[in-house]
């Protein structure tokens, strides 16, 4: 698709500068910043991951691959990894369903100023501090917290519904963090679908579930999938939500890695675990981008 737009765009800019100049100009600041703030540190970390211990003090350093065998040497890591993937899956799935439905409701059931207000209200929590947001959930979910009190007020004789320090609590916190982003990406995908297309389908005899499954979801699919990947990837690396909301059950790859840096002071292991995680993520991304290309390529 971009290749089609290029000739017209190029025409406009052609008089002043060749296109590669402007492309470079657009990309340079971001990738310059990324190399300074991310790639350089990552490269250092990559080196660390092959060292036998944290490079501090005078002790000689040897290079080794043993940290990359962690999953074999320490089988409990496999279980943690599985839990982490499960957490990512649940969060992504919940976000996908809620985000899509909310976006659908925005597009089909609201108009004008009300819709704009709702969009802003949905986006606002996204800009609050992540740590603060997660911490607020502890106050909502814990025993004698907001929800628990509300529940006791409604049903005084029933037991507690506090779910702090559980997997559900982690997923709730993560969903809360990523839902606004997912609603907006789904909204953008849905709002571009012409009403007349839905009208045409209805006139041909389609009821709402046919419209949903045959028209709306296929047309929004690229947005849905890229949104899912961009939720899943950071979620499986997260450690703040698992730690604060999960307590003892909140051991994930993210927290294990964090522990290596802040508690165990085993940077090489932490680094090698992160790069293993990155490899898994890239594999997932590669799979989905393949599907995406086939899905949106059309006649190509």
């Amino acid at each position, binding site marked *: 698709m971009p290749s089609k737009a290029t000739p017209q765009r190029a025409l406009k800019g052609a008089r002043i500068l060749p296109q590669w100049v402007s492309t470079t100009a657009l990309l340079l600041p971001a990738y310059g910043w990324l190399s300074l703030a991310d790639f350089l540190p990552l490269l250092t970390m990559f080196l660390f991951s092959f060292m036998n211990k944290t490079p501090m003090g005078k002790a000689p350093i040897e290079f080794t691959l043993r940290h990359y065998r962690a999953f074999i040497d320490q089988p409990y890591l496999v279980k943690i990894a599985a839990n982490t993937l499960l957490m990512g899956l649940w969060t992504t799935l919940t976000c996908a369903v809620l985000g899509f439905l909310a976006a659908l409701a925005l597009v089909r059931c609201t108009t004008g100023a009300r819709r704009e207000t709702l969009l802003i209200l949905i986006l606002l929590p996204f800009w609050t501090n992540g740590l603060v947001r997660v911490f607020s959930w502890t106050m909502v979910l814990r025993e004698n917290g907001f929800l628990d009190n509300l529940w006791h007020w409604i049903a005084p004789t029933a037991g507690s519904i506090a779910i702090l320090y559980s997997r559900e609590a982690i997923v709730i916190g993560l969903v809360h963090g990523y839902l606004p982003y997912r609603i907006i990406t789904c909204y953008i995908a849905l709002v571009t679908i012409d009403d*007349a297309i839905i009208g045409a389908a209805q*006139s041909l*005899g389609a009821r709402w579930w046919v419209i949903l499954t045959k028209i709306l979801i296929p047309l929004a699919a690229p947005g849905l999938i890229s949104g899912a990947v961009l939720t899943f990837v950071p979620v499986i690396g997260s450690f703040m939500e698992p730690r604060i909301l999960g307590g003892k059950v909140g051991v994930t790859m993210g927290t294990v890695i964090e522990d290596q840096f802040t508690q165990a002071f085993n940077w090489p292991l932490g680094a090698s675990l992160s790069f293993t995680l990155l490899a898994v993520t890239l594999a997932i991304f590669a799979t989905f981008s393949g599907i995406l290309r086939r899905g949106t390529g059309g006649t190509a």
Partner: protein
Amino acid sequence: MTTVSVQNVAKSFGTVPVLRDIDAVFPQGTFTSLLGPSGSGKTTLLRIIAGFVTPDQGGVTIGEKDVTGIPVWGRNIGIMFQSYALFPHMTVASNVAFGLELRGIRGAEAPKAVAEALDMVHLADFGDRMPKNLSGGQQQRVALARAMVIKPSVLLLDEPLSALDRRLRQKMQVELLRIQSQTGLTTIFVTHDQEEALTLSDRIAILDKGRIVQSGAPEEIYENPQTRFAAEFLGDSNFLTGVVESGAVRLPDGTAIQTTAPLPANRQKPTLAIRPEKMSPAPHDGATNQIAAKILTVIYAGPALSYLLQTPDGTRLKLFQANRDGTLMREGETITLHWSPAHSIPVQD
């Protein structure tokens, strides 16, 4: 192959009335145009017939069936939008097959019906293309095939041709007429283009501010407009106002205008509509229905000439003439206009 009728329909959006007292019959097999200015409620009426909009009062019947409470998907209608509205993620053939699948038509029967429909719109070889790889006219024809393949009881079109250029639009008009007369499908066509309405329709219904002000055959409306609005909106018209005196209308300057149509009682002040092409420059011979006017502007339009004139009391008039001998009359000349009494039509304001 069904008569469609609308009974006593009214619709408001918020407090704004958009349609009032709409009663209309679209007889079986006819091509009816809903013609009116922007905002007159044409689309809303069409969407009520389709079932996208629920009327505040009144009902719709398609054939024998009262469909007022039936949603769009249960009405078996074919519809075409200005924006084509093809499903962008499906091939042309899948677009056309969509309605068939929903009717449970599968197996060998479906591809055959799809091929026939595409053949009808001369796109037999385009089944495997994606909509984005078609021109606007081709997309519109796919939309037509998609609407027709389900054998709808009525075809609804909301300005389907206005996104096309002039040449293509005329070609599509011919296509549309051919297909409509071949299938004998009751068709309702929304347009604000009077020329399109005149050339395509068996019947025209003129809408103004949410009301149908006149409906009938194009010729009937054109030759006998009942209101000033209808006379002005379908074609062009001159208007003269005077007082009824002994069976004629006397203009302020004393000229008596004869009509063949019955006039209101004496002392009433009717408006007369006279089509600009029904007037002709005539010599002074004392005949009735003549009026002197000075030529203000001459517009040369190829096959026709159009003059803008002014009478001594300031009324502006238009005169259309076929171009036989070029421009014979010049700006500034004063000429006498004459027309037959049959062509002065009393209209309501």
